[in-house]
């Protein structure tokens, strides 16, 4: 059974706090909040907490925070010897935070994104992060997906059609989307 670290727990509880407060202060705007544990079948539980509120729905601008922890040991991805930083010094995986600057909401689905501001593995700082959130109903579980993209790709909330994202049923937690 994968370990759930104290840090992850704190981050999750923190996000729970954010989740309960953000909609109250920005009840007029589209928003999404949540915390979740996600497993893609590799016996690694990723933990994510986030909160995003739109600033201008037409432009898709937003503000918020993302906290993400992947406890899987991060491999050296310098497969072509092109000079990417080796990652053998990251046996505890990657933990990172990002500032949200975009949010698209469509019904019970949302895509939020921004740039990584701090990370336990330096190569992730500055990368784009996108989260896909699907707020399930009583018949279906909440679904979630995520992605990290090199800074030169200039990836944003509109980089992919919403239908292109394939959400994964979360193991636990709660995701909310408010239009």
């Amino acid at each position, binding site marked *: *059974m994968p370990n759930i670290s104290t840090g992850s727990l704190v981050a*999750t509880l923190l996000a729970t706090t954010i989740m309960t407060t953000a909609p109250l202060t920005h009840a007029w705007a589209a928003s999404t909040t949540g915390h979740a544990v996600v497993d*893609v079948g590799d016996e690694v*539980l990723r933990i994510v907490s986030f909160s995003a509120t739109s600033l201008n729905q037409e432009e898709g601008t937003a503000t918020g925070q993302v906290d993400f922890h992947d406890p899987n040991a991060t491999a050296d*991805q310098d*497969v072509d010897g092109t000079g990417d930083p080796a990652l053998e010094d990251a046996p505890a995986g990657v933990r990172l935070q990002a500032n949200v600057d975009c949010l698209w909401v469509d019904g019970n689905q949302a895509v939020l994104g921004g740039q990584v501001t701090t990370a336990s593995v330096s190569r992730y700082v500055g990368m784009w992060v996108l989260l896909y959130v699907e707020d399930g109903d009583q018949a279906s579980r909440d679904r979630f997906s995520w992605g990290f993209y090199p800074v030169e790709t200039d990836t944003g909330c509109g980089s992919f059609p919403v239908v292109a994202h394939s959400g994964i049923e979360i193991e636990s937690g709660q995701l909310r989307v408010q239009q």
Partner: protein
Amino acid sequence: MRTARIILTLVAVLFVTSLLATEAHAQATRTWVSGVGDDANPCSRTAPCKTFAGAISKTAAGGEISALDPGGFGAVTITKAITINGDGTLAGILNAGSNGIVINALTTDKVIIRNVSINGATSGINGIRYLAGGQVVVDNVTISGCTTTGIDMSLTATSGNLHVRDTRITKCTTGINVTTTSGAAVAVLDNVRIDQMTNGVTVGANGRAAIRNSSFANHSSNAVLLSAATSIANVFGNMFAHNGTGVRANVSGASARISGNGFFNNSTGILAVGGAAMNSDGTNVFGGNSTDGATTLPALLRQ
């Protein structure tokens, strides 16, 4: 105060328990890698992984890893049924100083490597190392620059099946090696181009090779070498040019069957050593060899 602390602790324990009491989620049947992917991603089409190694743990047994765009996706060890497919783009593995792909799967597993370029950059060990697994298909793969073997089928105490088709192997020491310590190592080669080795194909202990529609050129020793008493090779419709020896059965008990091949400009066309068999149906063509060589009886029967 104390009661509040107990309640808080209880809530925290229940919360952690809820996190831990999760059922295993199914892996994706198809995952993706990309030159701009990242292994912290779920390997979906919109969030691809960076390496085959990063994708394989997120891919279900029997599933497929596909390449979204050109890139080098790193060496990988395969321990389950899987397809690695670079169809439509350049899916590269740069394996300097290491094996490109190691297959160590179950006898019930089928592994397919399709449309992949494996480059050892002159210091790679083996392009593909097949240690265990029921069946391995190598389809439209390019292998080059390894110090040992392009495809090394070296099974231990087990049988296996290797199918190589539409594949090019160059600049290694041996192109394809076929052997197992017990059982049968069966290799079927179709439309394979192997050039510039010491030996093109080596059929070792318990090796059974069927080679058709392939070409072997510029091998300093042998294009096809049968090196053990239990080696069998059926060689049909191939071209052997500018090699030391075209087909060589090198030990008593080894059995080469040749039909419809062309042997041109080799030092020796065919050679059976020490009582080995070199059976022919009389349809092979010889030209420009220093020595054509001789077949052994009985002749293969034409029906």
